């Protein structure tokens, strides 16, 4: 078991190194002179030369990459070219709103997605099942930003139940952005739970539980759902990736002062280092969450625990 954890940890470090490599490689894709993009046409030759030295553009890629990884490991992501503040500080300020919004969206996903999937599986091939399946397919097809705009149009403009955007109105501010962000994940989780539950409900131990005369609710909730949870937990962890991407769009629609909006603003002002910093931090967060999910299997499923110990 300890060996399994160590193996996963080492692998995650390799993935993180790969992520930094991809990010650094994208910087090499910048067409034209990056100093023109970062400093504008009006910058002096001295300013450009200083920036070139700061970015290490005059050094080979391998050296540049090694410097970048060392800096990142020290928590130095460089400075934003617009605000001149350290990028890590910018991200630290914008992170809490994104985290809060994502957690609320994840909660909504679990509270709605799981029961919807279970209901759909227990009543497979009935009208309820078809309704849940149809709604989840719709959830996968409608773009996040359209859902957000529809909710704003109906619930903020027409019926004035919730604020249009921002996070100045306490709990009410969270409702529309969190629901918007959660809808796609609800669709994925309900489909996943349905498929996983259908598999489990056909297993011998469920038949045994029923044969013992246990109430159907106990069979489904205690025996079925617990066994069906492993693939659903994987899907939930992958949802975090979807939520992070969705947050970029949701925060733009609802003017939410999080990391997504910070990144979009940085893209528009061509603050490339800030964009890279945001991408790196979010991708690293995703890698860590995947690692924790993998490790959590060993607690959820005894079969995996035994394999991991072997």
């Amino acid at each position: 078991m300890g060996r399994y954890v160590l193996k996963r940890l080492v692998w995650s470090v390799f993935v993180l190194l790969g992520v930094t490599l991809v990010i650094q490689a994208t910087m090499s894709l910048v067409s034209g002179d990056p100093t023109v993009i970062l400093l504008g046409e009006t910058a002096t030759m001295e300013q450009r030369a200083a920036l070139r030295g700061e970015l290490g553009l005059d050094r080979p890629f391998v050296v540049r990459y090694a410097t970048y990884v060392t800096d990142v490991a020290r928590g130095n992501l460089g400075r934003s070219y617009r605000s001149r503040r350290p990028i890590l500080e910018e991200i630290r300020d914008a992170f809490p709103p994104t985290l809060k919004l994502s957690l609320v969206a994840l909660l909504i996903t679990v509270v709605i997605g799981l029961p919807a999937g279970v209901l759909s599986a227990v009543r497979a091939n009935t009208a309820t099942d078809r309704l849940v399946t149809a709604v989840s397919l719709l959830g996968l097809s409608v773009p996040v930003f359209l859902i957000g705009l529809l909710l704003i149009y109906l619930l903020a403009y027409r019926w004035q139940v919730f604020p249009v955007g921002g996070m100045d109105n306490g709990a009410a501010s969270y409702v529309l952005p969190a629901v918007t962000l959660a809808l796609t994940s609800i669709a994925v989780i309900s489909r996943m739970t349905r498929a996983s539950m259908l598999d489990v409900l056909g297993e011998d131990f469920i038949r045994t539980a029923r044969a013992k005369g246990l109430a159907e609710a106990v069979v489904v909730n205690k025996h079925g759902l617990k066994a069906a949870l492993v693939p659903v937990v994987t899907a939930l962890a992958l949802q975090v990736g979807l939520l992070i991407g969705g947050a970029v769009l949701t925060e733009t629609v609802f003017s939410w002062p999080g990391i997504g909006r910070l990144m979009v603003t940085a893209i528009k002002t061509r603050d490339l280092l800030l964009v890279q910093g945001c991408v790196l931090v979010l991708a690293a967060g995703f890698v860590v969450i995947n690692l924790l999910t993998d490790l959590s299997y060993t607690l959820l499923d005894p079969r995996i625990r035994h394999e991991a110990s072997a």
Partner: protein
Amino acid sequence: MKPAPDVAAAPGVFGRWTRDPVTLVSLVVVGLVLVVGIGAPFLAPYDPYAQNLPDRRAAPGGRFLLGADEFGRDVLSRVMYGAGLALRTAVVATGIGLVSGTALGLLAGFFGGWLDDVIMRAMDVLLAFPYLLLAIAVVSALGPGEITTQIAIGFWALPSFARVVRSSTLSLRERDFVEAARAQGAGALRIIWCHVLPHAMWPLVAFATLFVARAILLESALSFLGLGAQPPAASWGGMVASGRDYLRIAPHIALVPGVAIALTVLAFNLLGDGLRDIFQGGHA
């Protein structure tokens, strides 16, 4: 050497479409979007770029069936041109992912060993980027535009295609007809090209169809963020973004292209699901 025999039977499964109304309807909708997208220059009632300020934000009905936007441009014509742009981007991007991912997946699955390890670990790194972020990283470096969007989405598609093709190749390389070809002295590349690829192809068609839906969603998301095709190009996501400022007084400017995205993606999703069921049934 001819391709393996049961691939020839695959087109026969198309006959099942007539028995699956949902797939059939989605095929019709996808066909309509294709016709509208390709034929937009002939079918659109107005020039999608012609500004007509007295008609700006005109409600649907009357001269403009689906209304006019903030510059008085016909929303219907722009949505029709937008269909062309969305399809072009999605198909080119899916093509980039399909070709490069298939090549890498075939190599990894067929040869195995260290090559498999290197390729698939690289794919794992690309998959470690949360949705949208890899595309954002690429577009922010290359600069916004239609072609860079296609490259970014294609790059994002690459690992998914590589994984799917690798897993089919792993099972195909153990099949009897591959052994037979090997016994006859066929080289590795010939076996991959003539025997493995044709068999891996049909499930890939269903996956690619589902991927077109994802690519359309991603293209619209990038355009919505201002990273896709630049104005005055008629991109669906860009139209929704510019209509956002007029949501209270002229909701049609944002909602019409938004609904077009949702319907098109839904049709591709349903078609992809249907194709997958048909091909899985066909190979069962």
